[in-house]
């Protein structure tokens, strides 16, 4: 009887130790962790060559997606500049990362203009765009709302858009939301934890 109690106590200690070890080994993230992670919606928009981007073909890479617009003077270039710093911090590991800037303002964000906007900050960044219908379909799949702000002229209006970055893991699952302004070192650390 006594040996059975001892055996149970020992088992309990071992099980507790395993749980503690598993929790301790789980990476901590600076971005908001989505639990459980779900499959990322498609991103069937055109790149600068006119080819349709295939998010499913990026398995094995970590993919960062930011929804902005090419006439965005502040948040979008700031986010892309932070990506460039994060990419530099990743060094050689950045080869397993895709950086995607989606132009949500279909009237002005042609695929080529969107790609130029992103690639001007870093040639490794990819810009995607599409027809109003294609962009709307993508935004609906991602459950994202964007709208043209009141005021401004037809040529100089601004657009409200998501400020966070969507992070897709190597299995194609939406794992993190990185808030606007997350320091590049923390962006890089989150990516490294997913590689």
């Amino acid at each position, binding site marked *: 009887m006594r040996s059975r109690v001892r055996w149970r106590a020992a088992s309990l200690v071992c099980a507790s130790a395993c749980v503690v070890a598993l929790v301790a080994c789980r990476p901590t993230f600076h971005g908001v962790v989505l639990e459980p992670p779900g499959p990322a919606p498609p991103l069937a928009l055109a790149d600068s060559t006119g080819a349709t981007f295939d998010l499913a073909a990026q398995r094995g890479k970590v993919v960062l997606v930011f929804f902005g617009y090419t*006439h*965005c*003077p*502040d*948040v979008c*270039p*700031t986010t892309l*500049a932070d990506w*460039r710093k994060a990419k530099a911090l990743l060094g050689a590991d950045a080869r397993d990362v895709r950086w995607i800037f989606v132009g949500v303002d279909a009237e002005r964000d042609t695929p080529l203009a969107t790609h*130029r906007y992103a690639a*001007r*900050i870093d040639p490794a960044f990819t810009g995607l765009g599409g027809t109003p219908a294609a962009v709307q379909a993508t935004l609906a799949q991602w459950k994202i*709302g964007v709208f043209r*702000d009141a*005021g401004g002229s037809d*040529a*100089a209006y*601004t657009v*409200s*858009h*998501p*400020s*966070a970055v969507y992070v897709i893991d190597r299995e194609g699952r939406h794992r993190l*939301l990185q*808030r*606007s*302004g997350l320091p590049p070192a923390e962006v890089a650390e989150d990516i490294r934890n997913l590689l």
Partner: protein
Amino acid sequence: MDQSSRVARVSLAAILAVACGTAQDAAPAGPWMRAGEVGAMTAAYFTVPNAGPDTLRLVAVEVDAAERASFHETRDSAGTARMVPRDTIAIAPGDSAVLAPRGLHVMVHGLRVKLVAGDTVVVRVLSSRRDTILVSTLVHE
């Protein structure tokens, strides 16, 4: 642009600042502007202190290298970034207006020239005291 012409443009801005009587109690700090292509929108950032005894209001802004400029503020509400125009920026005595990424900024509409890192651009800020604060901004990527 070679270094000598860059220095010359910065010096010119400094001379203009003196010539136009820029208020010394509102000399801007850390001015910079993000690079951009011709026709693009971009933004300029700097800090304006108010060392005077009264509230200082920034009421208008012009940028030589662009068709138009205006004060704006980026607001992040429930994960959505929204651009809000600001007619004026009020600075209390002893306080500063910090124009910085993801916050208050000078929105620069329609660049007349391509701006690359290392260029300098003059920004003119009109204050409620009817003086013009000249800001020589250095272009960054």
